[in-house]
C-alpha cells in the first residue's frame, strides 16, 4: 500500500511538472553559495516555458546519466523556437563547454531535464549518503522490507 501510494505520488509529480525527474539532489559545489551538495531542487519542464538567460536549468549531457544544475548564460533562439544555449556554474571560473560532449558547443531543449523553481537545503543528503555508503542503503532497504512483511493489514 505504502509502496504503491509512493509510486503514484511520484508518477503524478512527473506528469504535473512535465519533468522526468521533478526532484533532484545537488551533487556538486559548482553553484555555491546558492546551492550546496545535498540540497534538494524542485523542477518543472513545461514545454512552452522559454529558456532565458539567468535561469537555473538541470540538464544531462548526451550519453551521461548525471544531471547537472547550472545557470544559462547565453541563448540564441531562432524564429521557429529552436534554441541553443550555454551554461555555467556560478562557482566555476569557466563555462560548461568542457563538460559537454566532444565537439558539442551548445545545449538544446532536449538536453533539459527541468528548470529549478524551488529549493530545500540539506534534505537531499540522505540520497548522497546512501550512494556513498551502500551499507547504509542496504540497511535502510532491509528495515523497509521487514516493516512491509511484518505489518498486518488491519
Amino acid at each position: 500500500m505504502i509502496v504503491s501510494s509512493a509510486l503514484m505520488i511520484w508518477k503524478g509529480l512527473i506528469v504535473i511538472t512535465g519533468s522526468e525527474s521533478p526532484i533532484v539532489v545537488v551533487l556538486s559545489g559548482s553553484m555555491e553559495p546558492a546551492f550546496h551538495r545535498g540540497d534538494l531542487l524542485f523542477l518543472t519542464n513545461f514545454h512552452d516555458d522559454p529558456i532565458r538567460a539567468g535561469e537555473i536549468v538541470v540538464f544531462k549531457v548526451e550519453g551521461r546519466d548525471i544531471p547537472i544544475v547550472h545557470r544559462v548564460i547565453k541563448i540564441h533562439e531562432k524564429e521557429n523556437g529552436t534554441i541553443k544555449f550555454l551554461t555555467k556554474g556560478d562557482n566555476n571560473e569557466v563555462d560548461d563547454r568542457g563538460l559537454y560532449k566532444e565537439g558539442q558547443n551548445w545545449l538544446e531543449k532536449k538536453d533539459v531535464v527541468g528548470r529549478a523553481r524551488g529549493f530545500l537545503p540539506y534534505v537531499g543528503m540522505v540520497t548522497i549518503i546512501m550512494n556513498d555508503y551502500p551499507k547504509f542503503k542496504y540497511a535502510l532497504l532491509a528495515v523497509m522490507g521487514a516493516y512491509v512483511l511484518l505489518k498486518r493489514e488491519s
Partner: protein
Amino acid sequence: MRYVVRITYVTHEREIMRKDNLVERSDLGFITFDITADILNGKNGFIFDWNVKQLFLYLSAEYSTKNNALNQVVLWDKIMLRGDNPRLFLKDMKSKYFFFDDGNGLKGNRNVTLTLSWNVVPNAGILPLVTGSGHVSVPFPDTYETTKSY
C-alpha cells in the same frame, strides 16, 4: 530600484577555428558600463527579508539578428549575500564574459538592450527571477574596430 548604464563600445570580428578546420567569423562586442543601483527596496518592499539567502545579480544584453530572432548574453554577474552592502556603485566595468554573437549580428545593430536582473535564492522555497526596472539600449557601430581592444 534605479540604475544607470553608460556605455562605450567597439565591435570586433573574431575568428574561431572550428573542429573541422573551417574558420568561422563571429562578431565580438566590447562594452564598458557604469551601474548605480540601490537593491534594498524593490517593487514589493524590502528585498532582503529573512528568507533571502542571497541575490545573484546579472547584467544581460538582449538583441535580435538576421540569424536569430532572440539572443541573450550575460555580460556580468555578482553574488550579493544578505548582509552585504546592497548598493552597487560600479564604474568603468568591462564585461566579465565574451560578448560573442552567433554570427555577425552585432555590427550595425541599433537595438541591443542591457538589463539588470537578479535571481533570489531563498533559505528555502521558491526561486524567482526578477528583472530590475529600467534598461538601456546600445547601438553598435557600423564598422569593425581592428585596432582597439580592452
